[in-house]
């Protein structure tokens, strides 16, 4: 699926990368503020804090590939991946996927081993409304990568 590189797929990926850079820049100053008591911190921000601990995430290498506009929020296909070697000494341990507006911020955690060869996973998620999807990758050396991208949702999922 992702092997076929159409021009539009390429554009999407480039978009994801630039989006990652912008998101990381936007988020970095926000993190120290979060560390102080901030009772109105949103659930997804609490979750990000819990995953990162004191670590400062860096940008790049981690991408979320999904449509910019999701017509059906009940099932939005996505691919998350890190462009990183997968050797016993240097590999991606996990990718956390987080929603900024769903009733619960956790969406999925994918755990990799060097045996996977490539740190990439695909699934389908629910999105209740237009929001940001955040991914955090945890590397074997203790570093974290983070990316955030907006998704417009035409008809929300999770409803009932």
């Amino acid at each position, binding site marked *: *699926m992702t092997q076929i590189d159409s021009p539009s797929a390429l554009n999407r990926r480039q978009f994801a990368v630039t989006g990652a850079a912008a998101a990381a820049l936007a988020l970095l100053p926000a993190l120290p503020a979060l560390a102080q008591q901030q009772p109105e911190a949103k659930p997804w921000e609490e979750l990000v804090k819990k995953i990162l601990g004191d670590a400062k995430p860096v940008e790049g290498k981690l991408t979320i590939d999904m449509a910019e506009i999701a017509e059906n929020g*009940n*099932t*939005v*296909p996505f691919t998350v991946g890190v462009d990183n070697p*997968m050797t016993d000494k240097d590999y991606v341990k996990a990718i956390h*996927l987080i*929603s900024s507006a*769903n*009733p*619960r911020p*956790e*969406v*999925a*955690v*994918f*755990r*990799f*081993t060097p*045996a*996977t*060869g*490539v740190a*990439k*996973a*695909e*699934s*389908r*998620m*629910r999105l209740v409304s237009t929001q940001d999807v955040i991914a955090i990758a945890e590397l074997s050396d203790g570093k974290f990568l983070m990316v955030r991208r907006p998704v417009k949702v035409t008809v929300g*999922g*999770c*409803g*009932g």
Partner: protein
Amino acid sequence: MQNPRVKLPEKAKAGDVIQVKTLISHVMETGQRKDADGKTIPRKIINAFSAKFAGQEVFSAELFPGISANPYLSFYFKVPGPGEFEFTWVEDGGAQVVQKEKLNVVA
């Protein structure tokens, strides 16, 4: 939780990185919905997935209500040689479905 489906390449060589695709039928009830009487429908989702190859765990996932019904999961795998996959899906409450698939490794 039924009808697990797994798609592997028809054949693979040692050293290849293959894509493994899995799908299972499940409503993935979020615990947010209400029934006709206004009572909350209790959460019931598949909360964990794991893939073993030749007895060793190679990939796993923790799933939350944000994952769509009939969860599709795909990951990659670098073929070390011949062997069999064992896939496990775990539902809230502990029920499990296990599916085994041999990987056709050619020289």
